[in-house]
């Protein structure tokens, strides 16, 4: 027993592992800090890696330890997350070794920004995080739930925390998918203080789950003196969740969208998931309806076949036609296709602009009826055109009207 508590391991090593590291700690009685560093970047960063490790031991007041570090080019935020994960196994420290928040990670989000694409990243894979932002997804989801093996959950929290502080996501909305409650509530402690914009709540099927998350976030915000809003995006992944969609959608002011998760939902329904997704048509339309009624965005599930770009394109088109305003991605190459499909086409924008011009002209002249050419335009059509024009302006596709 005593032996076990003296030894800890964390991280990953192996021929295919890159930008990560594996650490093994052994507490010793004496001899100080001994570091055995095996790193592919030893000649370039060897001494700074050793310095970082020494700083971490000093921070946690560990004086005598043997560290074996196998490094495949991990950045400092990863090394320190791995080392901290190991330290926590052998010491009951309440402290966190938190890296600096880089300036470019301090940007805020806003409630009604568009969320066409959100790229899922496994929360325990540092390699995939590094360049995620350069692919320009609207949002980046650091996932603590399904993509993290149960044994790695604690490590992943630290890695995600450090990534939120040090990895530049180049303006993407910063999202984290927490675990199902109650573990998800513990996850919040590691993300809320670090400028997370949106918290995704998996397998949501009642208002109480939202309330629990909301309360915990509010406590953490108070504790850390955070004024910025943290938004919520519940994910509906069960038949019950679908039935409760509107209640959930309107459960909190901080909810900006509902997402649907078709993998779990089809399992719950006992049906086979197809690319055409007719088996979940009811669930999806119901979810869209609930979102519109609650005044929030409806976000569609990911398209799982990353090799089938044409299938994805068809899928997004249908998704948009049903009223969804965004979709999850599991591969960066899906992003541009999703954008292409959700972004209004030039023809759509042109038509919308014509309608708006006619509307303004009619208003100026005090006319009660709006017409484009000889065609009468109803007010709902104007409203829709206005949405399209506003979206196009926001996307920088057309200039703002003075």
């Amino acid at each position, binding site marked *: 027993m005593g032996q076990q508590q003296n030894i800890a391991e964390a991280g990953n090593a192996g021929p295919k592992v*890159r*930008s990560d590291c594996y650490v093994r700690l052994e507490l010793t009685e004496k001899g100080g800090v001994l570091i055995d560093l095996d790193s*592919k*970047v030893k*000649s*370039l*960063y*060897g*001494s*700074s890696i050793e310095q970082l490790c020494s700083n971490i031991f000093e921070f946690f007041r560990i004086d005598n330890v043997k560290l074996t570090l196998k490094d*495949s*080019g*991990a*950045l*400092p935020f990863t090394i320190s997350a791995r080392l901290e994960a190991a330290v926590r196994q052998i010491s009951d420290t309440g402290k966190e070794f938190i890296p600096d928040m880089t300036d470019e990670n301090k940007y805020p989000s806003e409630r009604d920004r568009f969320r066409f694409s959100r790229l899922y990243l496994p929360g325990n894979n540092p390699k995939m995080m*590094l*360049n995620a932002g*350069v*692919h320009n997804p609207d949002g980046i989801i650091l996932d603590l739930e399904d993509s993290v093996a149960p044994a790695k959950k604690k490590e992943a929290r630290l890695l995600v925390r450090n990534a939120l502080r040090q990895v*530049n996501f180049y303006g993407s909305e910063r999202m984290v998918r927490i675990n199902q409650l109650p573990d998800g509530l513990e996850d919040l402690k590691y993300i809320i203080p670090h400028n997370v914009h949106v918290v995704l709540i998996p397998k949501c099927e009642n208002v109480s789950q939202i309330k629990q998350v909301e309360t915990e976030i509010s406590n953490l915000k108070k504790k850390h003196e955070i004024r910025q809003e943290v938004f919520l995006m519940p994910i509906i992944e069960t038949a019950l969740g679908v039935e409760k969609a509107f209640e959930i959608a309107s459960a909190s002011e901080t909810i900006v969208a509902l997402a649907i998760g078709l993998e779990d939902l089809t399992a719950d329904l006992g049906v086979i998931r197809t690319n055409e997704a007719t088996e979940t048509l009811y669930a999806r339309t119901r979810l869209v309806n609930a979102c519109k009624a609650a005044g929030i965005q409806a976000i569609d599930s990911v398209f799982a076949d990353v090799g089938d770009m044409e299938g994805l394109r068809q899928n997004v088109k249908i998704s948009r036609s049903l009223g969804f305003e965004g979709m999850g991605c599991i*591969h*960066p*190459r899906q992003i541009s296709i999703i954008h292409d499909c959700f972004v209004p086409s030039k023809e759509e924008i042109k038509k919308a602009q014509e309608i708006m011009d006619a509307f303004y002209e009619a208003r100026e002249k005090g006319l009660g009826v709006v017409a484009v050419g000889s065609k009468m335009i109803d007010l709902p059509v104007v409203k829709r055109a206005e949405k399209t024009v506003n979206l196009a302006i926001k996307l920088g596709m057309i200039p703002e009207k003075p």
Partner: protein
Amino acid sequence: MPETKLVKNAAGRSVPLKINGKPVIPYKGVGKHNVTGTKHGPKINTCKDFPSDGNKLVGTLKEALKKAGLKDGMTVSTHHHFRNGDLLANQLFDIAKEMGVKDLRWFPSASFPCHEHLIQYLEEGTIHHIEGSMNGALGRFASQGKMKGVGVLRSHGGRYQAVQDGEVKIDIAVIGAACADPFGNANGLYGDSATGLLGFALADSQYADKVIVVTDNMVPFPCVPWQIQGNYVDYAVEIDKLGDPDKIISGTTKITKSPDRVLLAEMTAQFCDETGIIRNGFSFQSGAGGTSLAVGEYFKKIMQEKGIKARFARGGSNKYLVSMLEEGLVDYILDGQTFDLEGVRSMAENQGHVWTSPFTSYNYHGKGNFAGLVDVAILGATEVDVNFNANVVTHSDGYLLHGIGGWQNCLFSKTVILPIPLFRDRIPVVVDEVTTLCGPGELIDVVVTERGIAVNPLRTDLLEKLKGSDLPITTIGELKDEAEKICGKPEKAHFDNQIIAVVKWVDGTVLDVVKKVR
């Protein structure tokens, strides 16, 4: 090892005045080195010394080597048409070892990981040193200072130049060919070991003292087309197997699936589109390597959409380029190295798919070459520095890991673009100063990274065309800063004073040295 006298060359690099005991000329700058004199003259031969029936067949490679007079200290050349599937070079040195020959200079057009087998011969003295690319295990061996002589790294064009100018006198050239006849005519087009062309062996056939053609597909005279002319050949040998076909297909000829590299390719193609490089009648160099291939695919898309045709594509051919030729998007492929069987098939069938050699494409000491006529070359690099100087042979840790290939020669194309990641794992690619200088910055026009595109300030024309572009145009200094911000400022690799290899420029002058890693 005696202390070598070093001088600073025009690139500011300290280089020796002698390599392996022979005087060399330090690099003087791009286009600054004038040459006089005559080319190397091989011995005159006469028909009466060769079989009147044209049958130059000898029983075994060993017999041929004996007849060719293989002895201590000779220079023996081989070629890399079989790439990592080459079975010939290893056999050749197995025989040399059997014969008890020592201190050979191996002069390959390139080496591959399969040649790790030869390290034992470098250790025990059959091979004295290598002049040619040293990849993988051979590079590591050399970088650790274990090779007896100093390695010399040349571009494909520089290799032709060195042979032509008499800098390297080849005693025995051993040319592996997928198809040959007993007279010595040979090509790479037909047979189990088909490689397409044999261009890298051209200089050797023309200038070597003795030439041995080895094939596993002997056909009756005439073997046509004769990419290698039998009139240069002393002996023909038939063996069971020259190459491993699976490995002849280069591993670097699949389009990348890495989203980061695809992004680089997309940005590069967009850059070429916006700057008007992609226009009717243009030409491009297409390299091997996943990113270059992906650039080709984006080129294809743009060309199809806009109805643009290219006059020619130069470089290694593969199924992607062949499809462009067959769809009429390019008029000609000027092929320097055939990377897959589609390329081999196309070259055999299609008059527009033309085999070239380092003489036509790359040789700097000729009356022009094709590489200089190309509108845009998309190349790789292990490092680029803030002066646009680039490295392709070592990594930042100092280890020799790659050959120069045609890279230096392609720098003479009208626009040179390097799509490279800003960093690999934690290793910055855009750096203060390259570890080894392989290409002078004045010839490198654009660096495309996933975090921004830097245009060489010398290319004001390109910068002018990019005004108002959506592309993330930045400066090379900013890219370097960003790399350091992400990875941290690297320490300098630690080197010993021992020079383990030199990098030659295309004109035969010494551009830089590679030192032993400490």
